[in-house]
């Protein structure tokens, strides 16, 4: 990395005190950690390179999958070791010097330091545990799921998979905002590559482009935010940034509701970060890419578009939580956008028929919950929901994937029924059931606890009762659409129709599988179609995830730390990190209030009320934290009961149910919801079409006018050359004369310059 230092020192026309890379990297007070932690980042990269080599030598086995599973597995073990050896003090691990630019500005000499190093605190560990753990499991699942593509495509899949884990590790573990940005773009790239995995399918290509382009909008926000952070705070390193007295001062004054002392620039930073987070985590109005992203292979949907990458926005906000606290409007906007997204996506999800799309909208909706949690001052609730959601949503996706894999791409819930009773599908059905009760928020499941934390916090935070009510209604809708899937696909009479991949012989990516199926079954009728039950790898993963989903609820009970006033595991982990500013207030607001209402340290941030403003506390006459257990439990059960009545009770075939006549009573509304409220079409009309027209106009301006100018300039050197060419006659005497003449001419020129009085 000598050259980076060299170039950056040369690029920066710095005062000589900083000459030639002689400066030591700025030392932060954070201790440095053991270097084996770098393995967590390095191993996925190694697997990617190996997959590239396998592709080059034309490997035709499952070797890429095993390489990736082993690489991710060791990375997971290292993460566990990192967790176990963590003693509560954050530390950094330095890989190499990356960007070090030193320059002088009006305020004195500055340095922009962004090293390739990693910042380890509880939030990092918390995130990396489930990222690497799920990556290992899902790689194992994919080894079987992708087996019909063995060959170059198989290598390509696992290469991108490893690259994703690497990027995600950079995003989560990086010790500065630029590393986060690197990982942010890296996961975006991998998402693009994997959504477009079936690149011969036009829908997949369109979905990949859509995901990439929509994310650009968010990325622009993040990039500007990172830039402003450096301009305002003078550092991008977490260790420096979050101990910056300026920022701490802002947070202190924000806590008493005084925003007048905080400059507008500092308040803009979180708003820009927020845009980035909305893009990556699929929040309104940038959520439209996520449902389309389901064109990618299902393991990708499970890992990237449900469990890990889409939570990057939550991570970003949690990581930079102090900055969000220091902004008057950022957290309220986050809360409201999250709520709107949760409701909107849930309504769309209710009307879809493609089970994978239902899961996609459910993901968008659940991400909305997490954002609402962040917005109502409970990063703990948000982060806990991230964890529980990662397990149960990955489980749900992988179950859907197993169905898709077994039924030749069939995902329509009107064409599948009663799978529970089909031989070989017991584990899938069980997994699906566990996932569904979590998502629906059935009492004592993990999803129930994490959702309640957010709901209760919404009710105790002054001014957010409305958000609480909307989220409560959404919880009911969630329970309904979740069990709609379960009751339609897994319960009821046995009936199934294979999907179109069975007879789609010229589909290149599934060529081998088609041949196999066609040879075995002969034709496409349901009577003769034998679903291809999942093998050991898929089943193992489903069992592990089922167990994880069940036991994730335990994290709500254990892991609390009395000294740190934390209630449970997620609280302990989040409260000890940079997302900790809430912990003295937010999740214990009521306790503090009960003890000392006079001096209740209100999270009184601007519009959320001040000390003078009374709290909208008790909900239905009790502590919202306790009341919420009953209320949301009841609402969840009502939703499930409704789904049971409408979609299972008395249903005799796959296609029809009691819901159909009821849906007709609502007129056009179900149709509108099925068509996603025409959000895509609206975007198309008001954004894409004008942009296209504008770009066509600019294209012609560029072609006719700008290119013309450029061509003229391109022609000038040639013209000069044609003028100069005769001077190279090749005749010796000519050269001698030219040289002598040239010398005379130059002397004359200098003479003239002297006479002119030094024109240079």
């Amino acid at each position, binding site marked *: 990395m*000598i*050259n980076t*230092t*060299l*170039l950056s*020192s*040369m*690029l920066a*026309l710095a005062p*000589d005190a900083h*000459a*030639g*890379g002689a400066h030591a990297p700025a030392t932060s007070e954070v201790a440095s950690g053991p270097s084996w932690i770098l393995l967590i980042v390095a191993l996925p990269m190694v697997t990617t390179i190996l997959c590239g080599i396998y592709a080059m030598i034309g490997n035709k086995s499952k070797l890429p999958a095993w390489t990736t599973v082993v690489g991710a597995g060791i990375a997971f073990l290292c993460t566990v070791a990192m967790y176990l050896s963590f003693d509560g003090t954050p530390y950094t691990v330095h890989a190499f010097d990356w960007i070090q630019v030193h320059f002088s500005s009006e305020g004195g000499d500055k340095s922009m330091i962004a090293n390739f190093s990693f910042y380890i605190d509880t939030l990092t560990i918390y995130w990396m545990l489930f990222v690497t753990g799920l990556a290992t499991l899902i790689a194992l699942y994919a080894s079987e799921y992708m087996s019909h593509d063995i060959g170059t495509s198989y290598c390509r899949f696992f290469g991108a998979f490893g690259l994703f884990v690497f990027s995600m590790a950079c995003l989560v573990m990086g010790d500065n905002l630029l590393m986060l940005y690197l990982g942010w773009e890296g996961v975006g790239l991998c998402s693009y590559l994997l959504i477009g995995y079936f690149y011969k399918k036009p829908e997949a290509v369109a979905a990949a482009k859509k995901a990439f382009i929509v994310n650009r909008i968010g990325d622009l926000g993040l990039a500007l935010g990172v830039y402003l952070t450096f301009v305002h705070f003078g550092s991008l390193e977490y260790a420096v940034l979050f101990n910056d007295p300026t920022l701490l001062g802002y947070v202190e004054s924000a806590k008493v509701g005084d925003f007048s002392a905080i400059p507008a620039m500092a308040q803009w930073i979180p708003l820009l970060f927020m845009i980035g987070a909305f893009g990556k985590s699929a929040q309104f109005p940038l959520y439209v890419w996520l449902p389309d992203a389901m064109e990618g292979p299902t393991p990708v949907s499970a890992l990237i578009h449900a469990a890990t990458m889409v939570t990057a926005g939550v991570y970003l906000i949690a990581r930079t939580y102090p900055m969000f606290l220091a902004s008057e409007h950022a957290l309220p906007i986050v809360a409201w956008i999250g709520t709107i997204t949760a409701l909107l996506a849930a309504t769309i999800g209710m009307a879809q028929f493609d089970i994978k799309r239902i899961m996609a909208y459910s993901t968008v909706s659940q991400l909305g919950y997490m954002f609402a949690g962040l917005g109502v001052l409970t990063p703990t609730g948000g982060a806990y929901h991230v964890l529980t959601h990662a397990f149960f949503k990955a489980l749900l996706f992988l179950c859907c994937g197993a169905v898709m894999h077994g039924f030749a791409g069939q995902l329509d819930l009107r064409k599948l029924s009663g799978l529970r009773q089909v031989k070989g599908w017991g584990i899938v059905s069980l997994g699906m059931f566990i996932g569904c009760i979590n998502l629906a928020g059935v009492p004592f499941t993990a999803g129930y606890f994490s959702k309640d934390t957010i709901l209760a916090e919404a009710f105790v935070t002054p001014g957010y009762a409305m958000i609480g009510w909307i989220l409560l209604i959404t919880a009911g809708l969630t329970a309904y659409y979740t069990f709609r899937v379960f009751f339609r696909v897994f319960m009821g009479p046995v009936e199934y129709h294979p999907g179109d991949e069975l007879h789609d012989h010229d589909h290149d990516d599934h060529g081998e599988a088609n041949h196999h199926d066609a040879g075995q079954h002969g034709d496409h009728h349901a009577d003769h179609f034998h679903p291809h039950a999942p093998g050991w790898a898929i089943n193992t993963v489903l069992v592990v995830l089922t167990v994880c989903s069940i036991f994730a609820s335990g994290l709500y009970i254990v892991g609390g730390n009395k000294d740190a006033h934390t209630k449970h595991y997620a609280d302990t982990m989040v409260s000890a990190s940079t997302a900790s500013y809430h912990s003295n207030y937010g999740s214990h607001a009521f306790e503090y209030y009960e003890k000392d209402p006079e001096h209740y340290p209100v999270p009184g941030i601007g519009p959320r009320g001040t000390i003078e403003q009374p709290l909208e506390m008790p909900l239905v006459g009790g502590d919202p934290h306790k009341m919420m257990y009953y209320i949301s439990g009841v609402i969840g059960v009502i939703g499930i009961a409704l789904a049971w009545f409408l979609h299972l009770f008395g249903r005799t075939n796959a296609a029809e149910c009691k819901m159909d006549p009821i849906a007709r009573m609502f007129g056009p509304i179900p149709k509108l919801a099925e068509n996603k409220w025409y959000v895509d079409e609206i975007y198309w009309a008001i954004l894409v079409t004008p942009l296209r027209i504008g770009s066509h106009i600019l294209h012609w301006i560029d072609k006719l006018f700008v290119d013309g100018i450029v061509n003229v300039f391109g022609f000038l*050197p*040639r013209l*000069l*050359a*044609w003028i*100069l*060419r005769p*001077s*190279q006659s*090749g005749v*010796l005497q*000519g*050269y*001698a004369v*030219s*040289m*002598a*003449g*040239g*010398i005379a*001419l*130059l*002397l004359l*020129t*200098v*003479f003239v*310059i*002297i*006479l002119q*009085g*030094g*024109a*240079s």
Partner: protein
Amino acid sequence: MIEKLSFIIPELILFIATCMVMVTGQWPVRAIRQFTPWIAAVALVAAGMIATMTPSDPNALFPNMIPYAKFIIAFVGLILLVNLTGTVDRDLEDDVDKGKPFLPLRSTGAEFYAFFLFSLTGLMLTASADDLIWLFLALELTSLPTYIMVAISTHKNASREAAVKYFFLGALGAAIFLYGFALIYGAAGSTNLAQIAEHFAHNDLGTLGLAGILLSLMGLSFKIAAIPMHFYTPDVYQGAAAPVSAMLAFVPKAAGFLAIIAIVATVGWNEYGRLPTTVESLIWIMACITMFVGNTLALLQNSVKRMLAYSSIAHSGYMLVGVLAGPGHAGAPFYRNGIAAILFYLLCYGVMTIGVFAVLGAIEKKDREGNPEEADDIEDLRGLCKTHPVLGWTVVICALSMLGFPPLLGFVGKLGLFAAGVSAKQIPIVIVLGINSAIAAVYYLRLVAVAYLDKGDRPQQAVNLSPYMSRRLAGACSAIGVIALLVIAQPLVDAALTAAKFNGPSRIDHNQADHELESDEHASVFVSDPAHEE
């Protein structure tokens, strides 16, 4: 004088090797004849290693110049030697294989290596020169052998024509800078460079001194192939065998720049880092026109050698920017020291240009009579990456590096020149440099495109590997060098910076605070006393 010996041990080593080479090259026993290049190689390695241990000379204008300069001379010389090996003696040995007797008097193998080493000896002596006479003799020792090497490098008449042109025009150039040296001696009353600098620091340059400096610079422009004495370059490069052209691209240019730095240093940069207005104007004009002439004429070439010759002209223009920028103030870092930038760029330029020449030498095609002839047309490189990957990639890497494509070596070198120019507030010439880098991209990218983008499946006249394994090796060495030197760029840059540490007296411009007054004074000196002109 005896104390001077400690500074020229590398030269002595090369000289001893030269004597040995002259004997072994004519030896009747073939094994000993074939051992000749190895002697030269060992001598170069030894000279390069010993050069790094040379003590610094507190009396010289650039006290630490010798270790770095001689090291890069030996380093690039080694690649050149690999490239040159066999150019002359291979045909001879083939004849011996066919049963012809070996006639020492008819053989040119020994002279070829000897002249090569002589030339490098002269180049090293240029680096250690502290006296005008020494400098002149060293420059001539550098150049004279090259005239003959051009003549004997091939059997074609084109080579002889090139040699004659080169010789006569070289004599013209030498005459001009010798005249300049004489005038400088007349003005300063000493031939010692440090004493001249001392004189010019305290006395006005005067008409005589000014004329001497200007004529010296213009005469030396022959060595570096800059205007107004650049005309010979394409003809000579084209006429010589490719390895010899590669040598011409580096050795005289390095000698010329070392001499120019020495001559300009006698006038010195004032406390604001500026040369006297007149000298600055001359170098400015030379740099500007040289860049434009080189780059625009290179656009029209189909002969790769001519293209590289014009590229060589253009690169001299780039490096003159470093002279304008000067060494900066004491303790200036690399990006503010134009002299360090030149010294580093010489290394970069040598490595990358040899790469392309080596590839030209490594392939051959049949001429009309079916005899093998050197490839020169750009079409001969078509699809080289597919047909001969090592050679093709060498062309691609070296051409991109000459273009200054990040992160290759040429980029680092050119960045140094840019940064030095900017820090010296020579913004206009830096803009010219930028424009020219853009123009140059056209023909370098043409080389890259021809070698890399073409599939190599078009029916074309066959281009074969020439029987010189060593040239392929030299090409590969250059390509690897372009990348490997990047990895150790920091120590090299530091060494160049040390070498460029200027020890001369700071010139006192009485009226520097007021530019107009200063120029008026110069003008009045020049005009009021025309008698000095005579």
